[in-house]
Each structure stands twice: as C-alpha cells, then as structure tokens.
C-alpha cells in the first residue's frame, strides 16, 4: 500500500486566471514553489463554497500542468467542468479570489526510463493532465501520439500550446461535431500495432479506462490510467474511494484511489467488480 504523497501541503492560494475554454474553465492558481513537486497525474483538493458553505467536502481536480510566470510565480492550471454545485462555485470565482488547496496529492504517471512509443488517451476534461505529461515524455525522447474523445466538440479540451508537444493528435466526438465520429477507444487496437505502442496513458471516464484495459489485456502494452472515484477526503483517511485490485496471489484488495491512485496500472484494476460487492466474488 502506498502512503500519502509526501509533498502534500495545505495552503491558501490565489486564483490568477479563470478563462472559458469550450465548456470548461481553465483556472490558474498561484501556488509558488509547490510547482516543483507536482508531477503529471497528481491532483489538487479544493475547499468549495466559502465560509458559509453547506458543502463539507473538498473537490479533486487533476493538475493539468504547472508553469512559472514572471508576474505570478509558480502557477498550477486546472481544467474544470462546471458540473454540480462545487465545480460551478469554483468556476464562478473572479481572479484574485483565495482558495484553500491541498496539493499535490496522489500518484503520478510513471515515466519510462528509456524512450518508448506512448499513446495518450483522454476523455473530456481527462485530457487536462495529458498535455503536461506529453511534454515530459517528449523531453525523454518518447514518441507521443494522442487521442481525445468526448460526446461533443465543446467538451474536447485541446489547447494550442498542448498540441505542439505531441507527434499526432486525433479527435473523436460521438456526435461528429469535431474530428472523427465515434468513440475514442475504437482506433486503439490498430494504433497499437501500427505505431508499436509500448505504453498507453489514459485519463477520462471509468468506462473508457475499462475499455482500454480490455484492449491491452493479453498484450505487452502497459496501461497507466488515472481513475476518478468519488473521494471524501483525498488524503487516505476515509476509505470511500476504493477500487478492487487483483493481488499477485489472485486475492482482491480494495485500495484507495486517492493515495494508491489516481494513476494505477490498468491491468490490476478489476473493472467488472467496480461498484459490486467484492465479497460475493471472492
């Protein structure tokens, strides 16, 4: 079992940017030196609703990327979908607002020690952490191809700058409003053989991750996926965010996706047991 990210810290941070991109908000938070310990795949947990909020739990967001700007120092970028009351509150904050954050949390995408052919697959805002990851992979000499999918074009997040760090980018929408029509998982089997993919990095809805795991099953392709289970605490103390993992001896462990994840080996996750009673199948 992993322990909580040893770099995690709690701080009051200032929002220095909040821009609408498609259906998402690109939110920039000034976090100072903390950027030096944030890795692609890590997430941040943010208090929502202000001092008289009825929302008692933090919301988790993938750290899309970190950078250093001359005016704000170290900043962290999030891609937030205004979904329910917490994310809508966050998206409504004007620049200059203070938020209480805990970051970086969770595991990071594993970076191969030698150059490999990497395929990055993002669903919806799940593409957010993939661009930062792509930069790192490129700097290590990997070839990086990217597939992004969503139900419709406004849910595709693909920033200009980001595109520069990938060798190819293909977009799939279910309604055909952008790129190819269909699911982002459809071309994967072909791409694996055509490009000689060694590792797939994925982030998006659980069904997408499960589908990719099914594709990579019985292949040599490594599948590192960033999962998204409801989290009450984000720091490993509540046991709400568990996923069933197969152990070496075939027994099941329910591991915390906030500290043993969000990035996990897709081959270990027992996707068909998610949301089922693990005892029943034991």
């Amino acid at each position, binding site marked *: 079992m992993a*322990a*909580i990210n*040893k770099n*995690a810290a*709690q701080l009051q941070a200032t929002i220095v940017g909040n821009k609408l991109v498609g259906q998402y908000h690109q939110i920039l938070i000034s976090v100072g030196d903390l950027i030096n310990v944030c890795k692609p795949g890590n997430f941040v947990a943010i*208090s929502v609703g202000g001092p008289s909020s*009825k*929302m*008692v*739990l*933090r919301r988790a967001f993938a750290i899309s990327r970190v950078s250093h700007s001359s005016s704000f120092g170290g900043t962290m970028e999030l891609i937030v979908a205004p979904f329910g009351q917490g994310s809508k509150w966050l998206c409504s904050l004007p620049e200059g607002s203070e938020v*209480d954050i*805990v970051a970086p949390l969770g595991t990071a995408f594993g970076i191969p020690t030698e150059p490999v052919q990497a395929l990055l697959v993002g669903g919806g805002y799940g593409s957010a952490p993939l661009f930062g990851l792509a930069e790192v992979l490129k700097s290590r000499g990997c070839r990086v191809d990217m597939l992004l999918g969503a139900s419709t074009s406004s849910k595709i997040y693909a920033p200009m700058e980001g595109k520069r760090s990938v060798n190819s980018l293909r977009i799939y929408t279910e309604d055909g409003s952008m790129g190819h029509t269909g699911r982002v998982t459809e071309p994967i089997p072909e791409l694996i053989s055509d490009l000689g993919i060694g590792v797939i990095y994925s982030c998006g809805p659980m069904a997408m991750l499960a589908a990719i795991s099914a594709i990579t099953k019985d292949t040599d392709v490594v599948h590192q996926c960033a999962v998204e*289970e*409801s989290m*009450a*605490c*984000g*720091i*490993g*103390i*509540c*046991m*709400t*965010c*568990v*996923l*069933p993992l197969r152990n070496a001896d075939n027994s*099941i462990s*329910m591991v915390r996706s906030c*500290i043993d994840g969000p990035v996990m080996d897709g081959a270990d996750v027992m996707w068909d047991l*998610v*949301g*089922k*009673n*693990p*005892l029943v199948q*034991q």
Partner: protein
Amino acid sequence: MSAIDFSTTFGNAWFPSPIFTASGCASSGKELSQFFDLKDIGAVVTKSIMNKERLGRPTPRMAETPSGMLNSIGLQGPGIDVFLEKDVPWLVAQKARIVVSIAGETVEEYSTLARKLRSVAGISAIEVNISCPNVENRGLVFACDPDASRRVIDGVRRTIGGELPIIAKLSPDVTDLVSIARGVVDAGADGLALINTVLGMVINLDTMRPHLGGKTGGLSGPAIRPIAVRAIYQVHAALPKVPILGMGGVASGRDALELIVAGASGVSIGTASFGNPTAIPQIQNELKKLLEEKGFTQLKDAIGYAHREEQSHE
C-alpha cells in the same frame, strides 16, 4: 503554551487534550501525521477493526449531503492481527495516545478482539463500536438492542479484565438512548462514545436508485450536530458520572465546546478532517482559546456546565 489544564480522563486513562480523532476518519493516523504531530492531540481513535480482513461495501461509498455526508464503508480493514503488527507499533513510536476501536459480527468476535488486545502495550483505551450502521442487517447493530449491547460489553469486560478502559459507542437511532447507555454501563463500560452516524439514504436521480452501493449509509458532519448535542445532554443528565466521548459535526472550537458543556469529557473529530486535514489541531487551539476567554482554568470545569447552570437557576 498556556496555563489552562486541558487534560481529561476516561476511566483510568489520562489524555493531555480532549480532542481525539473519530474512528474511521483518520485511518490509523499515518496520513494525518503529514499535517500535524499525532502526539500533540488527545488521542488517535483508530478505524474499527474486526477479527479478519474485510473488504467492505461496494462503491460508491459516499454522498455529500447538505452540511454533511453519507458513508457506507462497511468496516473495510486488514483484520486485528495485521493491525496489531503494523499500525499499533507505528503509533507507539509516534508517542500518540491510542484508542483502539473494535467491531464484531457476533458477541464472541468482540471477546476475541478483546483477548488479542489484552496484553498489547501502548493502548490507552478500547472503543467498542456496537453501532456501525453499515452492516447488511440492521439486526446486527447491537446498540439498537439493549440486551445485545449489554452482552457485547459484558463479554469484552470479562475478557479484558479491569485495566483497560472500555468506551461503548452508541447509535442515536434508537427510541430510548438513555436505557441503552445505562445497560452498557451496568455491563462494565467505563465511558460512552456518542454518537455514531445516523442512518440515511440519498437517491441518485440519474439512475433513479439509491446512490450508495450499500443503499443506506451513515450521516455525519455539521448537519447532525444538534442530534449529538441532544444525545450527550440527555445521557449526561441521566448518568452524570460516566465520561462521554462526544462526536458529531464538530468543525470548530466553538462546536467542541458545545459538546463539552452538554456533557462530553472528550470530543472526536470525524468528517471535519475530510474537508480540512488540519481541522484537528485548529479545533484544539480554538477550544483552548475559547475556554481561556471564558475564564476556565481547567477543562474539567466546563464538562457538563450546561447542566450545572441549570441547577443553580431553577
């Protein structure tokens, strides 16, 4: 820090501060120790442990609710043997005070757990969780049945001997809390933990089914604080000599003081730690300051104050 005597006791166990973690809301302490030093708070109450490993209930295991949350963890844990081997020694090394919470499916399981704990060094007290709502059968919530709860405590008391204080954790979901409290005290509990979560449910309107994998869950957080204050007040009025570990929606020093003047000798912090990993030391500091502002020189004088005032006024 300050002149105030902040210490509290449960049976023969002494704690430098009345602020504890709540069982199931701090795991075994390791994760929170990244945010503050565990020896600086009253005690770590560990997640309720069972005899064998347990995988718990299916996900989703939580739903946020107005000023609260539901959980249906279902007592996931590694089992007492792994716990004693890994977690207790680590906590001892941190110089934390340790309250071990135990849970069983049968009266016998509680006794087995007590036997395994009997000779373990470094434990200050045992919290006996007879009130977890996240079990398949509500009949298994011992604390809903005066007789069953008495038998559990009786079994633990006999097994453990007279040394280690026993704190029985009760459910507010009963018609007559005071009689259940009286029963477990008669059976040998040195103290009472009030309250466990309140049974609740949320329906997911996308699926049109209960949101939680376990269907029902336990309601915690500020939403239930008035229920906790009432339960503590009622039980302290009936059993003024029995120390109460209070809990339920405490998120500030002000809230902690409310439970203390209602009758709690100590206060566990649960859900607040999820929203704020440094909630516990913050609440502890706020409570200390509040007590000083109100002119108290020792915490003990504030315990149950709301009752004493009443006597002098009426």
